[in-house]
């Protein structure tokens, strides 16, 4: 059996559903194909942040602003808050070296219009009375926000389906071929074939395997993130928290950061975010272990120990669950978004690593504009998958 469509989106996570949703709104007949169930991939095993402070000044930060606006209109369109919250965020600074780097980083972010500042111990104590005394300073931005990934995906799927989008789950893509008229034939596990002139590879961590089917180089590596979830507790402080350590390692590979064994071997850094269910999501590791999605005792223990270092008060709080997801990481920390040179009609929208939730609506919107051949946006050249074509 063959399904004909205008666009086939491969991958039904938050990025694929966003692409499908915005393409459908542009009048395209879209089929979204997924090998697994709802939220089986990274979109179902992550935190819920629309985080500005972690973004390098540049395209990722700019797109986060635009994505936040799109989330506002999406909430209005589906008439649902989608778990949106705006608690603000603090990045915790532990020594002079981190302070200098973060001060420079904050001033760059401010020049891009981000409302962020460095605050002193007294201010910190007001916002976070339980924080360990060894924190010497912190950044603070009231813009950092949250949205429930599951609610967003359900909204994209429901609203998109009401506009005519079709979603097929538990039926993986097994092959892609191109026929005489330029159309793609995408075959799936159960034998169903889908035909369309445009294919969008939004398979996240698995996008490399889809790319291979058409000879496109999509260098995405799974990076495992383990997260633990606490029992329901009253708010520990006003804002969500991160450690500067991770940002500093990410921003300045010329600087040697003082890391302990866990931080080095598991890429451990501190992320502490309050969920809509009054629990906290505490992370996280960043490990290269192939496609192994398991949690480990070592990882969970390291997260617990690190948490107690920042928030000793949590000693008496139980954690109720641990999850792990495979974040799609790229060599340069930026997503792949665009059409592959020499493979007309084949687009990739993947490789968001930890920014998938924040950047989902803008990714779908920009992708839809590209597919509809809107006038080009040169800012996006640096996201083109062709930057990896000859690697």
């Amino acid at each position, binding site marked *: 059996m063959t399904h004909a469509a205008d666009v086939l989106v491969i991958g039904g996570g938050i990025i694929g559903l966003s692409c499908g949703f915005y393409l459908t709104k542009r009048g395209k007949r879209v089929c979204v194909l997924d090998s697994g169930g709802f939220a089986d991939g990274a979109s179902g095993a992550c935190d819920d942040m629309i985080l500005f402070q972690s973004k390098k000044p540049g395209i990722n930060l700019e797109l986060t602003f635009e994505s936040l606006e799109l989330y506002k209109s999406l909430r209005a369109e589906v008439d649902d808050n989608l778990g949106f919250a705006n608690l603000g965020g603090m990045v915790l600074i532990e020594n002079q070296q981190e302070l200098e780097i973060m001060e420079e980083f904050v001033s760059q972010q401010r020049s891009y219009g981000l409302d962020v500042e460095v605050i002193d111990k007294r201010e910190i104590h007001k916002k976070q009375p339980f924080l360990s005394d060894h924190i010497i300073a912190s950044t603070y931005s009231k813009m950092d926000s949250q949205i429930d990934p599951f609610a967003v995906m359900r909204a994209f799927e429901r609203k998109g389906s009401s506009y005519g989008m079709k979603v097929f789950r538990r039926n993986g893509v097994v092959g892609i071929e191109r026929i005489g008229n330029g159309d793609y034939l995408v075959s799936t596990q159960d034998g169903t074939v889908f035909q369309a002139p445009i294919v969008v590879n939004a398979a996240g961590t698995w996008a490399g395997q889809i790319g291979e089917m058409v000879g496109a180089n999509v260098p995405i590596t799974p990076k495992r993130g383990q997260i633990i979830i606490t029992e329901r507790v009253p708010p520990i402080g006003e804002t969500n928290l991160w450690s500067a350590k991770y940002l500093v390692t990410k921003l300045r590979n010329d600087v040697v950061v003082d890391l302990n064994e866990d931080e080095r071997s598991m890429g451990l850094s501190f992320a502490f975010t309050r969920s809509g269910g009054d629990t906290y999501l505490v992370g996280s590791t960043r490990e290269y272990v192939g496609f192994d999605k398991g*949690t480990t*005792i070592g990882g*969970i*223990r390291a997260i617990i120990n690190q948490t107690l270092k920042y928030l000793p008060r949590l000693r008496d709080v139980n954690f109720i669950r641990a999850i792990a997801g495979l974040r799609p990481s790229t060599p340069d920390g930026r997503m792949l978004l665009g059409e592959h040179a020499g493979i007309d009609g084949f687009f990739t929208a993947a490789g968001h690593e930890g920014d998938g939730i924040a950047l989902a609506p803008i990714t779908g919107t920009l992708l839809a504009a590209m597919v509809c051949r809107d006038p080009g946006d040169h800012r996006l050249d640096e996201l083109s998958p062709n930057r990896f074509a000859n690697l």
Partner: protein
Amino acid sequence: MMERDIVVIGSGPAGLCAAIEAAEAGAKVLLVDENAKPGGQLFKQIHKFFGSREHSAGVRGIDIGTLLLQKAEELDIEVWLNTEACGIFDQDKVWVVRDKSTSLTIHAKRIILATGANENVVNFPGWTLPGVMGAGAAQTMINIHRVLPGRKILMIGSGNVGVIVSYQLLQAGAQVKAVVEAAPQLGGYGVHTAKVRRAGVPFYTGHTVLEAHGTDHVESAVIVKLDAAWKPIAGTEFSVDVDTICIAAGLTPAVELAFGAGCRSVNSPVLGGLVPWHDESMRTSIPSIYIAGDVSGVEEASTAMEEGRMAGLSAAHSLGYLEASRYRSRFEAINHNLLALRSGMFGQKRRDAKEAIMAARKG
């Protein structure tokens, strides 16, 4: 790393029997439980059990529990209470936290999960008010802690748990104002149901609770009649003056450890939903992990005990502790008991469901 032949998680009827059976075969067993006392739900079962003589029919659950604990002590089984099992890693490592303070990893050549089940809830406006609780929780309060949860009770659900707990609440001195059952017919065994009915408690089949009222505690509940499609019929609402609403709406297997470990799941609507796939020997899709009792599909305590014996026997056998002939004869005996428990009007349905789980493709 500390090593044991078999770590049994959960010391209810299934876990206790598994530990005893394995220890009798010669295996070095560690039994862990998160509670301060062993026995799981057995020690609140003050009613007499059904079944055949081999299943201690006519004996009260509380007495069966005492016998099993004596047996475990005679066999010198190592028991860790106040010990939470947090996870299973690499198929054979059990991570536990003792006394909320000491974190330990144990290498277990075999693991038997006897984690039981959790009570289902029914959601209605007011269901989070203090005074709304699981029927099992109410039973723990009266039979273990000797505390009455309230004076005027509404029971939701007429299955065995609903009627047994209703009767015990009456015995404990509470008033049971009504038993409400959404299905068109009653769900519990006649003998338990009749005792409650004889005490004058009204039963409302084809009814459900619409909402609970109260400022900081349940003060009343509104009950409504349901049509054939289980939709409330407007105009049939009436209010009952209660301070406690007990929910006996079935149980869901406590499968978190099993699925966290990677055991393959099978859906069994009759036995409570998703359960780990297992074979007749109670082995899951992970060869080092066995299950027993409600976690393998919700049945009742006698079956849980037999399943525990089967899991303990098979786990010990897989470690070379029993000769083939002894294993075979014991296996047959336990299997015979299980079949007996799963026969008759109520049992056959469970037997069919159990066989469907075992027949599902091994993953």
